[in-house]
């Protein structure tokens, strides 16, 4: 059947487009407005040009927060994506136990972010938390309130705990969609387990894994609540990632110009990395 193309249909989505444009563009424009102005109060602003942007880009504090952000995002991606795929591969493909696994694995995804932070705060305390007490009992010096390495370990473990299930569920959905004929053909050809994974399962999971990496990148790059509740950016500022630093500048120091310039740089970086990753990953499909 031939599809008819009616451009008038675009009018049907126009109201939604307008609402989204208004609620997304107006706040963004406010930030843009603040990023090029300064004020001494009384709602009187004067133009500052690109001063805030050059200040932010030259600031060591911003570089530090950015490096910590990339270190955090890189580490969780390196752990969560392979771990999620490995767990999805080991899960039962159907039946009662498959449902049990799916229900338990979905649980962390349903817990609000601030509860996750509070839960891990208690769980990791060295004197009363199971994790903290257990590690110290094993002779491993661990105190996330005092030691930067312990704080990093806890923040990363918390994110792995909270979000690996998302990768598992996406990878599992990708695996379920593979036709049995592929496996039969591989069996006839005498393909090894690794060859099945490399040439059947991995290519078939490519799209869901792209979505998984994008979602995890964006979410982890914008993470705020969990590390804020767990460590508050400390000890010192060792776990102060970009969003925590941004809130400190905007609400703690009330430095609106700097905070707005940071917000725009932050937003553009997220957009750029996502666009680059998506374009590179999808390039193969278009050829």
């Amino acid at each position: 059947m031939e599809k008819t193309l009616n451009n008038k249909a675009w009018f049907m989505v126009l109201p939604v487009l307008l609402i989204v444009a208004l609620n997304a563009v107006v706040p963004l424009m406010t930030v843009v407005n603040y990023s090029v102005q300064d004020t001494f109060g009384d709602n009187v602003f004067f133009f500052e040009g690109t001063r805030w942007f050059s200040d932010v880009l030259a600031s060591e504090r911003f570089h530090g927060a950015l490096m910590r952000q990339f270190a955090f995002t890189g580490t969780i991606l390196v752990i969560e994506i392979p771990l999620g795929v490995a767990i999805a591969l080991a899960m039962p493909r159907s039946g009662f136990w498959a449902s049990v696994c799916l229900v338990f694995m979905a649980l962390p995804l349903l817990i609000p972010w601030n509860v996750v932070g509070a839960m891990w705060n208690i769980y990791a305390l060295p004197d009363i938390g199971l994790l903290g007490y257990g590690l110290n009992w094993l002779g491993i010096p661990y105190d996330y309130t005092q030691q930067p390495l312990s704080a990093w370990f806890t923040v990363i473990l918390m994110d792995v705990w909270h979000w690996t299930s998302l990768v598992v569920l996406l990878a599992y959905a990708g695996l379920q969609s593979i036709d049995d004929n592929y496996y039969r053909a591989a069996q006839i050809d005498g393909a090894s387990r690794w060859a099945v994974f490399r040439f059947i399962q991995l290519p078939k999971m490519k799209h869901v894994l792209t979505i998984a990496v994008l979602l995890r990148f964006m979410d982890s790059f914008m993470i705020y609540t969990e590390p804020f509740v767990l460590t508050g950016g400390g000890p010192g500022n060792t776990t102060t990632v970009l969003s925590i630093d941004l809130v400190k500048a905007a609400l703690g120091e009330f430095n609106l110009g700097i905070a707005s310039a940071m917000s725009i740089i932050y937003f553009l970086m997220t957009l750029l990395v996502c666009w680059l990753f998506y374009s590179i990953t999808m390039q193969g499909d278009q050829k």
Partner: protein
Amino acid sequence: MTRFRWLVPTLYILFLMLPIYWLLNMSFKNTNEILGTFTLWPQNLEIYPRY
């Protein structure tokens, strides 16, 4: 190798459940028990509202 495949999701689910168990465990302890001793389950089940 494939015989022990069930171990991977089992260990992962255990890892997922431990913090939730600890939160639940803490929610049934009184303040003295939380701060005074390390116990794997509540010794005196606290069900009276203290909030």
